[in-house]
């Protein structure tokens, strides 16, 4: 049966689209960055689910264990998590700077000020 095998990916796609929706729909810049975070976590989950093997265990070598899950996605996502925090911090710095320049972190108010100027 095909359905349960792919259901995990569909759940992840739904989570990913929630993130995309937040980024596009929300007017507040901090909320937009939270949306980016949600999107990021869903991508991480996609990679980790691909690395999972049924009956497998964490890839730490031991004598009595035969099946390990794939360690490669774990390595890639470890790197991606740290890079994700780096980009988040850059985004937040931009939010602080925008607040200094415009006195607001609402998208529409910033655009209004831009069109007035």
């Amino acid at each position: 049966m095909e359905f349960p095998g792919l259901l995990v990916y569909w759940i992840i796609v739904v989570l990913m689209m929630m993130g995309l929706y937040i980024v596009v729909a929300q007017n507040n810049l901090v909320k937009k960055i939270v949306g980016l975070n949600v999107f990021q976590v869903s991508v991480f989950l996609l990679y980790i689910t691909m690395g999972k093997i049924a009956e497998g265990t964490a890839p730490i070598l031991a004598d009595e264990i035969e099946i390990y899950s794939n360690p490669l996605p774990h390595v890639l996502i470890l790197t991606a998590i740290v890079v994700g925090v780096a980009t988040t911090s850059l985004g937040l710095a931009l939010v602080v700077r925008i607040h200094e320049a415009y006195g607001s972190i609402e998208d529409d108010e910033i655009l209004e000020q831009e069109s007035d100027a």
Partner: protein
Amino acid sequence: MRIRNLFSVVILTGVFSLLGAAIYVIMDAVDVAFTEAAVGAGVSTVLMLGTLALTTREEKASSSRRVLPAALLSLVTGAILIYGTLDMPDYGDGRAPIHLHVAPRYLNDSAQEIDIPNVVTSVLASYRGYDTLGETFVIFTAAMGVLAIIGRGRRRRKSGTTGEADK
């Protein structure tokens, strides 16, 4: 059902990250789980709280949302992505292509070659060490970027004209 208090939003994001870490443990990615718990749920939350301290804690009540275009965009993109998953191997399938190429080599040979029981560590620090070096460069660049945006020059610029002074 709309949260306007950004403080709650940030804390809920931290909870979300921690739940993500729990899911990683279930999927055997223990190293990823504790990185997510420490960096995702910890450092990110602190950075966001710092941002709230420097900006504002409340979203404005007048704030409007682009509901329809955003919903349309995410529905269409989601449908395309789900169509793309139809060719993917089942969850937990040990014969999926991803498990047949380099992963068996890491699992079989890393004990002799690197002599670290944790395969994730030996791949991260040795086989794919250049990736980790690149990651360090990215973090360095991000730190430089943050310093350039809100670093020491900020006070001086602020006394002049605000707005276009950031170039």
